[in-house]
């Protein structure tokens, strides 16, 4: 029992490395927020491309579905390795292939790219579920009022769809946040790698535990918030259509 405490919960270990671990966690947060925002946007774009109507857009729809299927089916770790290992050799400007934007190292941006590519595909599916959950009469009403397909999507369908899927999108964001630790394998000093380095030198895992606790500080309230949103959505759903007291 004592060994468990000293291996995982050694307070002096934790306080000794607190600043180091926190710095790593800040990088984790930055990675999560930037990749999360980009994935939310990219997923929405993908889902809209997938909904483009008519024959002329068949190739676009097909390519979008293929993209989503492929990147949902490949492990994120492999995407990270594929990007970080070879992007620098592609015949493109160095500013793109070896990015150091906003003073962040290239490994940070490789991580952002891999997370956006993968989670964009996941989130596209979530948006699609939301779009398909909007009753068909909404599109018909918008179209019969003279709106174009894109006007109807923008003003009528997407606002309703997004409201329906905020909770599952946040769930994906939590998953993305946890998956940022995979970017440690290409030597980005995010919280897991920092913890692992300390673990290797000190033969003690308490710094890693500290990193895990920092995760919980963020993910637990988020998960609770998601539960609340889902419960609220269900109440709306079961309450039914017009309320009698409004008459």
């Amino acid at each position: 029992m004592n060994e468990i405490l000293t291996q995982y919960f050694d307070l002096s270990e934790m306080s000794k490395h607190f600043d180091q671990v926190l710095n790593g966690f800040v990088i984790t947060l930055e990675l999560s927020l930037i990749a999360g925002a980009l994935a939310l946007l990219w997923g929405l774009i993908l889902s809209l491309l997938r909904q483009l109507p008519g024959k002329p857009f068949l190739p676009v729809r097909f390519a979008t579905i293929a993209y989503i299927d492929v990147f949902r089916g490949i492990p994120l770790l492999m995407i990270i390795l594929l990007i970080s290992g070879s992007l620098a050799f592609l015949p493109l400007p160095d500013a793109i292939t070896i990015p150091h934007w906003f003073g962040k190292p290239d490994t940070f941006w490789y991580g952002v790219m891999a997370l956006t590519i993968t989670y964009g595909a996941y989130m596209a599916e979530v948006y699609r579920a939301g779009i398909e959950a909007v009753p068909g009469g909404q599109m018909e009403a918008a179209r019969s009022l003279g709106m174009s397909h894109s006007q109807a999507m923008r003003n009528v369908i997407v606002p309703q769809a997004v409201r329906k899927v905020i909770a599952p999108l946040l769930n994906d964001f939590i998953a993305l946040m946890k998956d940022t630790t995979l970017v440690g394998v290409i030597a980005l000093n995010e919280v897991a790698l920092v913890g692992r380095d300390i673990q290797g030198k000190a033969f003690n895992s308490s710094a890693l535990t500290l990193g895990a606790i920092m995760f919980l500080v963020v993910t637990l309230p988020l998960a609770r918030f998601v539960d609340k949103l889902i419960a609220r959505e269900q109440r709306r759903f079961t309450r039914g259509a017009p309320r009698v007291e409004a008459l």
Partner: protein
Amino acid sequence: MSEPMLKLEGIHKRFGELEVLRGIDIEIARGEVVCILGPSGSGKSTLLRCVNLLEPPEQGEIYLEGRDICKGPGSGQGESSWDLDFVRQRVGIVFQQFNLFPHKTALENVTMAPEKVLDRSSEEARASGTALLERVGLADKLEEYPERLSGGQQQRVAIARALAMDPHVMLFDEVTSALDPELVKEVLDVMRELAAEGMTMLVVTHEMGFAREVGDKVVFMDEGVIVEQGKPANVLDNPREARTKKFLGLVLER
């Protein structure tokens, strides 16, 4: 008054194997109110949805104010061959299920299309939207969301929303069928008023009283064809066709 407002010629529509419309011809003069009756599954709703090209027909011609809006039989060229803007800005439709935008207030429901489609300023759209909602008796509900409104109120918002595009023709697709009985009258009253003001209307309905009182013409449809049409008094009181008699017998006996 020479050319009809709306003229349908030989309209055919099928969904897969099922031929829902099998050659429909109707002429509607400007300001005329035509009520379409018939058993469910007779193609009434599909016919309305053909007129504003929500369900474009495979065969036949639709002339709106003399213009062919559905070029060539079986025009399989997709939406590009139909003049959607011309149609949708002249033909308003009100649905059985209201289809209000739930994330917008009553007033926003009415102002959205004029702002986005007709590029009206938001002040202009709000002013005319407010006037329209007053006209349908909802002056005190401008800022309410649809879920806070009764079915009858929602349907009146839907009528105002369609009117906001200044349509020349209004289509009503069983607009009182989803309403509780006590809410039907408030919607029919709005429609009566519209008819009195000279709006051209094509009304699919089961309200025999409304058809008799407001309709200039009644069309009875069954199995995708027009069985009988004429003055309401003739069709409703002295139907010639057996199918019409049977249907009216079932409806009026209730």
